């Protein structure tokens, strides 16, 4: 719809600006708080312009951490988070695209049953199956390992379903043309389905990366060693100190830094992400 009404345009912009302000202002405040000494935040009147403690706070948080609240340096926690989020996102995509491929293109006994079993796991998120999952992970000796952090979160019904829906829209003739051109199932998967799913994979990657990055409950359970802590846990540990005021500047610096990787992923994948959600290359 193309309309040329200045008043409407103005109204639309005002609404958008208000929306952005509501979302962005707290983030800005967090940033401001991280650049002042911790006392500034506790004084009751919050400064609205950045202070001069930025370099000091950030370098302290990044490289030495706060041992009193049991928080290792942020770079370590961020690396852990990154490894976990990447493993989860890539693992989910790999497993889902393969299971969707099997379900859509192969006739095997109980195919429908297999599909519905995968689908039903949607009703069993981590929180519901957390005790038995912990038991399994513990028995396999995967506590305090990257494998223990990521593998239990890798299976994904949603992604499988998404890929299945996409594969169903691939015309049969394309499969047949590839068969006549001498492409076996795996070659068809590699040469046709993978490149055609590129945008879907990108969109999923963004969503799943953020999902993995934001994991809190599961890392909290399976990690006891400081070297395995993830950043989202770190925020909580910093804010939750006994017998003292929380060091809000430290907390806010951690929050800001924790936001950076997901933001970078979204910005980097923006084009593909939108494409993957909107159109399908066919």
């Amino acid at each position, binding site marked *: 719809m193309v309309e040329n009404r200045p008043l409407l345009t103005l109204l639309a912009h005002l609404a958008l600006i208000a929306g952005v302000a509501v979302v962005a202002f707290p983030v800005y405040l967090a940033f401001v708080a991280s650049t002042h000494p911790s006392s500034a935040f506790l004084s009751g009147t919050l400064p609205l312009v950045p202070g001069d403690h930025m370099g000091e706070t950030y370098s302290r948080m990044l490289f030495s951490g706060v041992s009193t609240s049991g928080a290792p340096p942020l770079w370590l926690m961020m690396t852990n988070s990154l490894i976990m989020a990447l493993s989860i996102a890539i693992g989910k995509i790999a497993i889902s695209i393969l299971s969707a491929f099997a379900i859509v293109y192969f006739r095997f006994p109980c195919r429908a049953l297999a599909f519905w079993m995968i689908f039903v796991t949607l009703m069993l998120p981590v929180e519901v199956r957390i005790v038995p999952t912990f038991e399994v992970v513990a028995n396999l000796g995967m506590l305090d390992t990257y494998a223990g952090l990521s593998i239990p979160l890798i299976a994904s019904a949603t992604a499988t379903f998404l890929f299945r829906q996409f594969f169903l829209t691939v*015309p049969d*003739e394309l499969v*047949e*043309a590839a*068969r*006549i*051109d*001498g*492409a076996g199932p795996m070659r068809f998967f590699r040469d046709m389905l993978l490149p055609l799913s590129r945008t879907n994979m990108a969109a999923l990657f963004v969503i799943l990366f953020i999902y993995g990055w934001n994991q809190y409950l599961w890392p909290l359970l399976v990690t006891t060693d400081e070297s395995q802590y993830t950043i989202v846990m770190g925020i909580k540990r910093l804010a939750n100190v006994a017998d003292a005021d929380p060091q809000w500047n430290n907390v806010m610096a951690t929050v800001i830094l924790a936001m950076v990787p997901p933001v970078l992923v979204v910005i980097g994948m923006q084009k593909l992400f939108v494409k993957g959600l909107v159109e399908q290359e066919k």
Partner: protein
Amino acid sequence: MARIDLDSVRKIYPGGVEAVKGVDLPIEDGGFVVLVGPSGCGKSTLLRMIAGLETISDGEIRIGGRRVNDAEPADRDIAMVFQNYALYPHMSVRQNLSYGLRNRRMARDEIARRVEETARILEIDAFLDRRPKALSGGQRQRVAMGRAIVREPAAFLFDEPLSNLDAKLRVQMRGEIKQLQRRLGTTSVYVTHDQLEAMTLADTLVVLNGGRIEQAGRPLDLYRHPDTTFVASFLGSPAMNLLSARVSGGDLRVGSLPLAARLPVPDGPVTAGLRPEAFRLLPDSTSGAFRLDYVEELGSTRLLHGHLEGQRLVCQMGIEHPLADRMTLDLDPEALHVFDAERGRRLDTAWQRAQIRSLA
């Protein structure tokens, strides 16, 4: 290049639907066979069975004398052109053409040579590096053809390749396919529901109905001497007039109107077939049996729609002929086709009568 033989080929789908009910069809090396019929007649199923995309329930298919019932599509030495082209959307035209060759591990320079040559034949060299998305319908059609040609297969299989094109392009591509097939001399099987396409392209025309071959032969033979009312009404546009008639003592009458005499046909009810262009109508305002309902102008000719003894009748005539509300039929009895009224089989042909006469 190879011949293709179908021996009592049958296709029964799980669930018991019999789509192809025993088809015998020898296809000569270098022949252009067109399978034509209404939707659901089994023509596409038959083609897909030759391609190996459908299993063969019974019977045998041989390509170049080799039984291929259990061979994979890729091992049958055939290439197929699909109705929606089925180009690989993420590959350039060049990659589309070479994909099948690369999968066969052909030498790189040989692939390049073949792609170049195919592109030249089809005049698609200018957009070898474009994606299918950036091509027009006609260009995509050419690329689809190119993907078949580049393989230099024993046979081309066409599955309604022109039905997604507009009318003008369809006529043009029809001519090009015909010329190309002549030049390459590759055995071709072509499926269409368009009788005009079928007539113009075929060396051998096969009319299918309900999973069986209704009639096979040269297009003009089928047009002139249809074996059944089905073939008679399917080929030709406008379709042949089929009138209920009765023969007694060799005289054929539609209602009370005599159309032909001394036919070598037993007495009883028959179906009389009359091509719209095989007779003329003369104005006769008093005793004309044909009552004109309306006229369609086609430019050089016109279609006269009307009734004869209560049955619909269409006549195609030049525009120079005068019109009237009532008209009489001016008809050469040899133009008349006589079919069994019940089963629709041909009872007698003008052609046979002419043969008999020339022998006498």
